[in-house]
């Protein structure tokens, strides 16, 4: 089959840029060719084998093993296949992901899943700031697919997010869902200050403690039981704190009134 295991041999002196190291790109190559795939290291390109030991696999999966916390852009704009990071990942993991599945067993750095447009990204540990948000200078953040974070997320999670679902089993930093355009975020733990700051549309579900009050959100007078059942039943498949959502009631806060007010913070009772 066409899968490979890339084992980190020695830590890179500078940060490594692993864009282009995707299951589809490597599938057509022999192990020897994979070893010569150029990867960015500082301001130069070096062969992959400089830092990784390459092994063929019996399946189609691309596995990156070892401590990759200094390896950035893992799964950058990936368009299919399965990529497993058996350890920690650096910045930009799954950024621009269009299809396929990326699974990171450990923690990930900043800007994970930013501008992700499809597929599934699972991060077992925690992620840094600006996950599911925009690349610097861009108008839209995450725009499709499913992001699941097992641990905590940093600040500005889902900034300018436009579509897709992002689930966080741990806590979130400040400015969760800031400037959110649409989409769904669900968080099991505690959210920092200013959740939903400047959000235009979209839904943020708080399965744990309610977020702090904001002057630019108003309590919803009417319920949305039908929509809630549809959403809660879909979120329930992810288990954990989300499994029982459909049987629990909600309170909604509508806002951000400073940005049109069509978004909602859903506080699960």
């Amino acid at each position: 089959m066409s899968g490979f295991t890339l084992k980190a041999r020695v830590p890179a002196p500078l940060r490594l840029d692993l864009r282009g190291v995707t299951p589809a790109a490597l599938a057509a190559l022999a192990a020897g060719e994979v070893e010569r795939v150029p990867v960015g290291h500082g301001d130069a390109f070096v062969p992959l084998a400089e830092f990784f030991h390459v092994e063929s696999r019996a399946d189609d999966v691309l596995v990156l093993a070892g401590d990759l916390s200094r390896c950035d852009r893992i799964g950058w704009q990936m368009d299919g296949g399965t990529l497993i990071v058996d350890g920690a990942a650096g910045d930009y993991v799954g950024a621009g992901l269009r299809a396929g599945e990326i699974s990171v067993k450990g923690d990930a750095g900043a800007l994970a899943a930013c501008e992700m447009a499809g597929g599934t990204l699972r991060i077992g540990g925690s992620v840094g700031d600006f996950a599911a948000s925009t690349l610097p200078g861009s108008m839209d953040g995450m725009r499709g697919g499913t992001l699941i974070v097992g641990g905590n997320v940093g600040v500005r999670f889902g900034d300018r997010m436009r579509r897709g679902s992002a689930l966080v089993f741990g806590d979130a930093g400040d400015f969760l869902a800031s400037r959110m355009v649409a989409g769904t975020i669900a968080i099991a733990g505690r959210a920092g200050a200013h959740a939903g700051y400047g959000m235009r549309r979209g839904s943020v579900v708080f399965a744990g403690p309610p977020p702090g009050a904001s002057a630019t959100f108003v309590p919803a007078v009417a319920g949305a039981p039908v929509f809630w059942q549809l959403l809660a039943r879909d979120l329930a498949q992810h288990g954990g704190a989300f499994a029982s959502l459909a049987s629990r009631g909600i309170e909604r806060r509508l806002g951000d009134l400073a940005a049109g007010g069509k978004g909602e913070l859903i506080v699960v009772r």
Partner: protein
Amino acid sequence: MNRNGVAIDATFAEAFPMKATRLVITAHTIEWARHAAVAATGFATSVIACGCEAGIEREMPAGQTPDGRPGIAVLIFSMSGKELAKQIERRVGQCVLTCPTTAVYAGIDEGEAVALGKNLRFFGDGWQISKMIGGKRYWRVPVMDGEFVAQESTAVVKAVGGGNLLLLARDTDSALAAAEAAVAAMKQLPNVIMPFPGGVVRSGSKVGSKYPALGASTNDAFCPSLVGLVANTELTSQTRCVMEIVIDGLTEADVGAAMRVGMEAGIALGAAGGLLRISAGNYGGKLGPFHFHLHKLMAEAGA
């Protein structure tokens, strides 16, 4: 062929290809879901003048619907996908959107997508909200009781329309009893509807008319009031009342199964119950590609 005193004609029902979809209408209670479903499938007996043929397929318990509320599944059939799309928009817009507490979902996933909530959302005047949940798009439209939730689109599939049975009986009472029993049996089956009032039609038609403007006219061969007046009458002095049941189904097998259980229900009443003969309507077999031979259906029933 004769079963329990009921003569089964060596003929066949001729049916046509149609386009169909299933909608699931849910509401706060089954009563309100039924109000919406009855209204949405009203005036939908025949494509000749209604634009579509529609009916209630079944009631769905709360556990089977997307939102966990009680619901009703309706089937809508039309001659083209375009006409079907028009009928869905009008009927859902006027009869489901308007009905208290309802929501509407696609009841078929595979097939060509046509608009369900996609255009109705504009009723929200800018306050409508789109949500993608589990890969499906829904629209949330603010209304005076809260929110109207509608799935963006439903799927259209190829279907079969115009399966039929003619029940020839001794008198009105026995004809109604046989027709009611047959419809009740057919309603137990999935994927079919009987679009006429109560599932039964008394004004069966033939192709053509003495009036050039009309494409169809009364089926004079089966009119008891014309016995002795028309040359080709099918009736005798014993058969004084005829009822027809028209069946639309998602597949040929569904229509055949419904015809079979309908015939069995009539045969169970038998000649003693006043049902004397079962026949079917066709146009010589040249117009419709689906032929349901009554003897063949009965043979399958016996097997």
